[in-house]
C-alpha cells in the first residue's frame, strides 16, 4: 500500500538552531513529494515539492528538503529556526494509483514543530 510516515509527533528545537522534520514514503514508481505547513486554526500552506532533478529542493520561508531515493526519505530542513516556524508540518506524496491529471495526495500524520526562544 502507498503510504507516508512521519515518525516524530513533535520536534523541539531552540531558536537559531538547525531543524529537521523527518518523512519517509512508500510508493510505487517515481514519487511526487510535498511539504505543507499548518499554523493554528488555519488551513494548510504549500512549502515545497520534489518532482524530479536536484535532490535538494528549496521552498518558502527558508525551508528546504532533501530527497533520498535509497532511503525513501524526504526530510524537511532549515538552517536556523525561528519561533514563528512553530506549526504543524505535513509531508505528502501523490497517490500513483490515480494517474493523469488528478493529483490525489496521501498525507502523513503530521509533526508539531516547537521552537523555543
Amino acid at each position: 500500500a502507498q503510504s507516508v510516515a512521519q515518525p516524530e509527533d513533535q520536534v523541539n528545537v531552540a531558536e537559531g538552531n538547525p531543524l529537521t522534520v523527518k518523512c519517509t514514503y512508500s510508493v510505487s514508481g517515481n514519487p511526487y513529494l510535498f511539504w505543507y505547513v499548518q499554523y493554528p486554526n488555519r488551513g494548510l500552506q504549500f512549502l515545497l515539492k520534489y518532482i524530479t532533478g536536484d535532490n535538494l529542493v528549496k521552498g518558502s520561508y527558508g525551508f528546504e528538503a532533501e530527497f533520498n531515493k535509497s532511503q525513501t526519505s524526504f526530510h524537511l530542513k532549515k538552517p536556523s529556526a525561528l519561533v514563528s516556524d512553530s506549526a504543524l508540518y505535513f509531508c505528502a506524496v501523490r497517490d500513483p494509483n490515480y494517474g493523469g491529471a488528478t493529483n490525489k495526495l496521501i498525507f502523513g500524520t503530521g509533526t508539531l514543530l516547537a521552537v523555543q526562544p
Partner: protein
Amino acid sequence: DVKVTQSSRYLVKRTGEKVFLECVQDMDHENMFWYRQDPGLGLRLIYFSYDVKMKEKGDIPEGYSVSREKKERFSLILESASTNQTSMYLCASSVSGTGWTEAFFGQGTRLTVV
C-alpha cells in the same frame, strides 16, 4: 492571490441533522477535494472531484456525500450527522495537470456534532 473559501470557520450541529459544508475557489481549478483532519491521523480524503458533476470516493466516504454543480463550488454533505463526524474539515483545489501541481487549502471548518 489564490483563494479557497470555506463558508464557516466553526459549526455546531445536533446528531441526526443534515449538514452542508460549502467551499468556493476562485482559481478556475478543475480538481477539488474534501479532507477531514483528526489528531494523530493526519488528513484523510473523503471525496474529490476532477470536473463539474464528477466525483470520486476517497478513503473515508461513508456517511458523506458531495455535490459539484459549478466548477468553483464543491459541497460536502453529512446526510445525518453523528458525533464521530466531529472534526476539522478542509477543502482544497488544484489545477489539472500531470500530477505535480500543489493543492491550495481553505482555512478549515471545525465541526462539532452534539
